C-alpha cells in the first residue's frame, strides 16, 4: 500500500505551470527548489509484521504444488511445467502453520478458528484429500486437485477447534486438532487410517474421515507391519491404533518420525528408540537383524542428547541439543559420493547450528538457526529445489527470499514455510 504525501509548496502551482510549457535543456542542473516537490512514498510502516509465505518446488504433474498453470497452462502456446526446480511462491489466503507432503499430494493447515482450516492439493485417487466434489457431478470427487482446495473436517465445534498439525503418508493423511483428537482420511487397505479394514473397499470418492482416540505422551501405531514398523511385536496389520510397547513402555515421547518402513521416536530425555526395517543399517547400532518389531533403545555414541529425529526411506538423521546433525544408513548421506552407507552416526560441520531436520524418501533438509535451508541427497524429479536435476552429495543452500521456519519433504516435492525478512 502506498501512502502518497505531497509536500505542499506555495510555488508548486507556479512550477507545475512552468514545467507544462518550458523544457529544461539537457545537462543544466536542477534548481534545489524543484527537487523538493518530488512526492515521498511510504511502502511499509514502522510496525509492519513479518509475513508468512509458502514456497513449493518439485514435480508438478500431480498438482501437488498447488499451481494450476503448471499442469494446465493458461494459454495454449505454453507447455505444462513438469519440474519446478527452484522455490515458487504459493499464494495462500491464510497464514499456514503446518504443511505435510505425501506421495504426490500436499496438505496445508492453518492455525485459525475459521471454518476452513485445511487445504489439500495433488493426488486424490484414494481420497487422501477428503471428498472434493466435482462441479458437474455431486457424487464424484476430483482425482487430481490442482489448486489448494479446502478440506472439510467433521468437527463438533468447527469454530472453536484449531488444526495443529498435518501428516501425510503414501495415500492417507492425518490431521491433529487441539480438542477433538486426530482425524484420518485416505487409503485404509492396511488399516493405516485407524479404522476397521473393509475388504475390497474403494477409496475413490470416499467420504470417510474418522477420529481416533489417543493418549498424550505415548506412541500409537496402526497399519502394515510386515517389517515390524508398527512396533507392536508382531508382523500383521493393525487396524486400530494400539499403544506401542517394547523399550518405549512408560517413556514420555516428544517426537516420532517415520518414512518408508523404519520408525524412530525421541523421548523427552533425549534418547532415541527405533523399530521397523533395518535392512539399510538404520538400527545396526543395536542389532544385526533386518526387521525389529518392537522398539529398542538405540545407544548412539557421541551423539549426546537428541532433540529431533528424521527418517528417510533408507537413511536416518538425528539432531542433538547442540545443533549438530548426524546421519547414517544407506544412500547419499551428504559427505561426498564415497560415503554411501554407514552404520554409525556421521557428524556434520559443528560450527553451523541446525534448528530442525527433516527427511524425504531419498533426501534430507536441514534448517539452520539463521533460517537458511540446506538440502542434500537424491534429487528425485527436482525435489531439492536447487535449480538442477543433479544429485547433491553435500549440503547445498536453497535460495529462498526469507527465513525458513519449517519444511515438509515428500517423495518428489517439498513445501517450505517462510517468514519474510522485513
Amino acid at each position: 500500500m502506498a501512502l502518497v504525501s505531497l509536500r505542499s509548496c506555495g510555488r508548486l502551482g507556479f512550477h507545475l505551470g512552468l514545467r507544462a510549457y518550458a523544457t529544461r535543456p539537457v545537462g543544466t542542473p536542477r534548481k534545489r527548489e524543484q527537487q523538493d516537490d518530488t512526492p515521498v512514498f511510504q511502502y511499509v510502516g514502522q510496525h509492519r509484521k513479518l509475513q508468512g509465505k509458502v514456497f513449493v518446488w518439485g514435480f508438478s504433474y500431480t498438482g501437488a504444488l498447488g499451481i494450476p498453470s503448471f499442469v494446465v497452462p493458461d494459454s495454449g502456446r505454453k507447455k505444462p511445467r513438469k519440474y519446478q526446480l527452484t522455490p515458487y511462491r504459493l499464494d495462500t489466503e491464510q497464514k499456514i502453520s503446518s504443511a505435510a507432503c505425501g506421495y504426490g499430494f500436499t496438505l496445508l493447515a492453518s492455525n485459525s478458528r475459521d471454518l476452513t482450516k485445511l487445504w489439500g492439493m495433488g493426488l486424490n485417487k484414494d481420497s487422501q484429500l477428503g471428498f472434493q466434489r466435482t462441479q458437474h457431478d455431486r457424487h464424484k470427487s476430483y482425482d487430481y486437485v490442482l489448486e489448494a482446495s479446502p478440506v472439510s473436517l467433521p468437527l463438533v465445534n468447527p469454530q472453536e477447534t484449531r488444526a495443529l498439525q498435518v501428516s501425510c503418508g503414501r495415500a492417507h493423511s492425518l490431521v491433529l486438532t487441539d480438542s477433538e483428537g486426530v482425524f484420518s482420511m485416505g487409503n485404509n487397505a492396511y488399516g493405516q487410517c485407524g479404522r476397521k479394514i473393509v475388504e475390497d473397499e474403494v477409496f475413490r470418492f470416499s467420504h470417510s474421515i474418522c477420529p481416533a482416540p489417543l493418549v498424550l505422551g505415548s506412541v500409537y501405531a496402526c497399519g502394515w507391519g510386515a517389517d515390524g514398523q508398527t512396533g507392536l511385536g508382531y508382523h500383521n496389520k493393525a487396524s486400530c491404533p494400539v499403544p506401542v510397547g517394547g523399550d518405549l513402555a512408560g517413556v514420555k515421547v516428544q517426537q516420532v518420525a517415520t518414512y518408508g518402513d523404519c520408525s524412530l521416536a525421541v523421548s523427552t530425555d533425549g534418547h532415541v528408540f527405533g523399530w521397523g526395517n533395518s535392512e539399510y543399517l538404520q538400527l545396526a547400532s543395536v542389532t544385526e537383524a533386518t526387521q525389529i518389531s518392537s522398539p529398542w533403545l538405540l545407544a548412539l555414541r557421541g551423539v549426546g542428547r537428541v532433540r529431533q529425529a528424521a527418517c528417510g526411506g533408507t537413511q536416518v538423521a538425528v539432531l542433538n541439543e547442540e545443533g549438530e546433525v548426524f546421519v547414517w544408513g544407506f544412500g547419499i548421506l551428504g559427505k561426498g559420493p564415497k560415503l554411501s552407507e554407514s552404520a554409525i552416526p556421521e557428524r556434520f560441520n559443528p560450527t553451523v547450528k541446525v534448528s530442525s531436520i527433516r527427511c524425504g524418501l531419498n533426501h534430507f533438509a536441514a534448517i539452520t538457526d539463521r533460517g537458511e535451508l540446506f538440502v542434500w541427497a537424491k534429487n528425485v524429479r527436482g525435489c531439492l529445489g536447487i535449480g538442477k536435476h543433479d544429485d547433491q552429495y553435500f549440503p547445498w543452500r536453497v535460495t529462498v527470499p526469507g527465513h525458513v521456519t519449517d519444511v515438509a519433504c515428500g517423495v518428489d516435492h517439498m513445501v517450505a514455510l517462510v517468514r519474510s525478512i522485513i
Partner: protein
Amino acid sequence: MAAQAIRLFRKMDGLFAVYKPQGVHWKHVRDSIESNLLKALNSCPPPAPQHAVQFQLLSSGENSSSSKDLALSPTMVPTLADHPLVTGPQFHKVHVGVGHRLDAFSSGVLVLGVGKGNGVLEHLCKSHVTRDYTLEGEFGKATDNFTDTGRVIEKTTYDHVTQDKLERVLAMIQGANQKALITYSQVDLRTQEAYELAVRGLLYPHGKSPPILTGLRCIHFNPPHFSLEVQCVNETQKYLRKLIHEVGLELRTCAVCSGVRRTRDGPFKVENALTRQHWTADSIIQAIAHFHKTTRRIRKSGMYRQTAGQMNSSAEVQEQIRSQTGQSEQINQDEFSSSTSDTVVDRETPVTMSEGRTKHR
C-alpha cells in the same frame, strides 16, 4: 651522468599502489604518474658532453690580428650529438599499466605497474584476489545512476529501517553469494575431490564469473546514512552501487550510493597507497621496493598457474594451486589486517554445511 638516469630507470620495475581521488578518471592518474616519472628521469643532470677532436682553422699564435695566417689546430670540442637540446629528452615513454580499474565516481587503491611490473599485473588480474570496498549509502531516494548526484526518480520513507533488518537482508544476500562461489568454480560437484575442496572451503571461482561477494557486513548505521564493507571478486563499481540500491529495495525503501572506496586490492592496502603529494619518482620507487616481495609472489603464482593450466581436470588445478603455493589466500591473509571483526558473516557461515571452516573470504 647518463648512468644516473639509467639507474633511476632500472629501479622503476614493479608494482605499487596509488590512492585515486574521487572525480578523477583513472587514465588521468596514470598519465600524471607517467609524466612525473618522466620528469624525474629527464631532470637528471645530462651526461658530461663528449669531446671530439676537431681540426679547426684558427688564427695562429699571439701575433694575431692583422696576420692572415690560419693554421689547422686540433681542439677538443664538445660534440653536440648527445646534447639534450639536440636529441630531446632521453626518456619519452615509461610503461605504466593499471590493474583493476576504478571508475570516476569511486576512490581508493589503484594498483599500477611500471616497466617489467606490467607482466605481473596480468598475473594479478588473472589470480582471483578479492577486493575490499567501503560503500556509503543513503536511504530515502532512488536515482537513475544509483549515486546521490543523479536525477532523483523516487523518494521513500525509511523510518521503518532498523539495523537488525539491514543485517538480515545482508545475510540473505550473502547466502546467495556463497553458492555462487562454488557454482562458478567449474569443478564437477559429483566427484569426491570436489567434495573435499568444498568442505575445506577452497573452491573458488575459476574463469569467467559474475561479480560475487565473498563478504558483506554493515559497519555503520545512522539513518539515513549507512556504510557497508564488502569483499568481492570480479566486480565493477557500478555493480556495487546497484547493490546499495538493491539493499534499499529489499528493505522496502530506496537507497543511493554516496561513495565507493576501495580499501584493498589483493595484497595492496590503503595504508600503503600513495596520495597525490607523493606521486613523485622517489616515493614511487620506495613503494616499488616495499612491494617487491609481493610482486615476486604474484609472479610466481602466475607462472605456476600457467603451467598448471595445461592439466585436464580443473579440480586438480584448483587443488594444486591451493596446496602447493597457496598464493591467493596467503597473499590476502598475510597482508590482511584483521580489522574485519568477528561479525563478518562470511567467516561464520561456511560455504557448505560440511566439515571444516572457510579460510577464504
